[in-house]
């Protein structure tokens, strides 16, 4: 018999209910996939047997590198060339190189293109002056084309960082579980495989997406952009607009950077009704939240889209009614076939159906997802799920 199964008062009843609900607090699929994407590369390399060898080889490499750089600068009479490349979320690709005008922290930009090998070095710069451009080869096949009067550096986590000016980033599709990140001011732009421009002006940071999907993060806040979207945010967030909490999973917390949609694409943003719905949810007043969201969903624009998606989440996670949730997300898809949350809706349906044990429907949805979103960062996850579902279906058929 469970502790407090027969509560004697409201306090004990609340405690028991809390414990029962806490058992179900296992995080959602998207959270787990995101964590896996960050740790996946840790599994690629076998664990180190001993650190001694690593320390010795590292020290030897550093000594050799230093000697090489000193000899080079002595011969050419220039400041040491600091070449930095790479990203912690990418493999340490051999031959990370910087091509173009390359300079160390104290050196002057050269008109000649310089190519050199180096290890990741936070704090070093690649700068371009007026009329100059530079191509910087980063790890994992990624490339940054630095416009004139721009500066690229690497942060303490070895991520490329646009300090000034603008750069066009080209990132080939990354292996499963690997991500590429570039920082601009307080924002982190995370991508799987895409082309986009990042620019840092005196008071703003901007991102224009040409291909694929990128996420702009600041702390725990994120905004998802698809091809054709433009976004800008304040370089100094204390100057930003008032807090804009959102109910959508891609922008779930306060102070989301404002999104400027381009070409009429819906942006993930919110309005007062969504704020009211969120307050009602936090207070546990689900019926009030559903009423507000139903009303909002009947409208149009991003708020309606958010509300339509959010209704499914409430049905799934708050009201524990997965079948109804699938129906709601299906309605969302009919209403917003190219919506910004379309991928999330498709994923949510796949996850919910498989959670319900509706193997056949989940498999159909998973296959449709792979066809519909061939470039999605989650395609491989869904493919794996589809394989498991197929195995489950085969096992059920054989019985």
């Amino acid at each position, binding site marked *: 018999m469970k502790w407090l199964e027969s509560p004697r008062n409201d306090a004990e009843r*609340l405690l028991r209910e809390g414990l029962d609900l806490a058992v179900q607090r296992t995080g959602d699929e998207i959270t787990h996939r995101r964590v*896996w994407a960050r740790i996946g590369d840790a599994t*690629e390399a076998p664990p180190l047997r001993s650190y001694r060898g690593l320390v010795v080889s590292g020290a030897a490499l550093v000594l050799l590198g230093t000697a090489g750089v000193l000899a080079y600068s002595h011969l050419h009479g220039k400041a040491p060339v600091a070449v930095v490349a790479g990203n912690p979320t990418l493999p340490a690709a051999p031959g990370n190189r910087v091509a173009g005008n390359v300079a160390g922290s104290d050196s002057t930009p050269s008109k000649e293109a310089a190519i050199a090998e180096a290890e990741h070095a936070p704090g070093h710069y690649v700068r371009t002056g007026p009329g100059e451009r530079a191509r910087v080869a980063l790890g994992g096949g990624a490339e940054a084309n630095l416009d004139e009067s721009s500066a690229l550096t690497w942060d303490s986590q070895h991520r490329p960082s646009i300090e000034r000016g603008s750069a066009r980033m080209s990132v080939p599709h990354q292996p499963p579980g690997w991500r590429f990140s570039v920082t601009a001011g307080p924002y982190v732009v995370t991508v799987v495989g895409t082309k986009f421009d990042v620019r840092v002006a005196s008071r703003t940071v901007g991102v224009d997406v040409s291909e694929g999907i990128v996420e702009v993060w600041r702390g725990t806040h994120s905004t998802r952009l698809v091809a054709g979207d433009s976004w800008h945010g304040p370089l100094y967030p204390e100057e930003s607009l008032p807090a804009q909490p959102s109910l959508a999973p891609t922008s779930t917390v306060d102070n989301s950077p404002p999104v400027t949609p381009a070409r009429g694409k819906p942006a993930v943003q919110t309005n007062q009704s969504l704020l009211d719905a969120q307050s009602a949810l936090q207070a546990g007043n689900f019926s009030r939240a559903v009423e507000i969201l139903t009303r909002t969903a009947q409208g149009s624009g991003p708020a309606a889209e958010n509300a339509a998606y959010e209704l499914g989440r409430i049905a799934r996670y708050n*009201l524990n*009614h997965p079948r109804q949730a699938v129906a709601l997300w299906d*309605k969302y898809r009919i209403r917003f076939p190219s919506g910004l949350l379309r991928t999330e809706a498709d994923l949510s349906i796949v996850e919910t159906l498989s959670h319900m044990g509706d193997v056949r429907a989940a498999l159909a949805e998973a296959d449709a997802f792979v066809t519909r979103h061939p470039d999605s960062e989650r395609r491989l996850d869904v493919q794996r799920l589809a394989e498991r579902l197929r195995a489950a279906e085969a096992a059920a058929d054989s019985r």
Partner: protein
Amino acid sequence: MIWDDEVWSAEALIDKTTMGQKQFTKTPLPMPAAAADAELVRLCREGDTEAWRSLYDRHAPSVYRFTAALGVPAEEREDAAQDIFIAVFRSLRHFRGEAQLSTWIYRIASRHAIRLGRRRRARELMRAVMLKESPHPTIDPTERSTQIATLDRMLAKLPPKKRTVLVLFEIEGLSAKEISDVVGCPENTVWSRLHHARAEMVTVARRMVP
């Protein structure tokens, strides 16, 4: 009209909630790594990436739930899970198989969560001393259930050792023997901590819900 039909109606949604919590039966999927944990560990050690993924899939939900119950705030939970699994992957060669794999992972997770809690308290103390700010209330903004939010506030009143034992027993469903393996104390101590933790929780609950 899409929005007028029954599926969108608030009443329809709310009515369905009264039908009971368990409205479907979950069919466990036959994972490729449905083999025992020992087999999974062996495959991981051989560098089988799929095995790593299976290990993660199998244990990520419980790690998330466990760290949440130990008070890791929502914004730090993903980082905590990342650190815990990287520690698991890197230390797997030291896993001798004497305890269950899940027990071993709980041990790593509990140490990490307690360490994070210690750092958080130190930060709050510093903030209180230096900036004369009162600590932020530990309310999970992503938590939409008032019962869980209240439970978190109650759990926050327990000392870490008692809290860990209570969470492992009441939420994670471990036996006293397994808990003793996780926290590294005799079984009798586990029972004693559980007894005191339960008593303190009831006292706190009564104070919070008059």
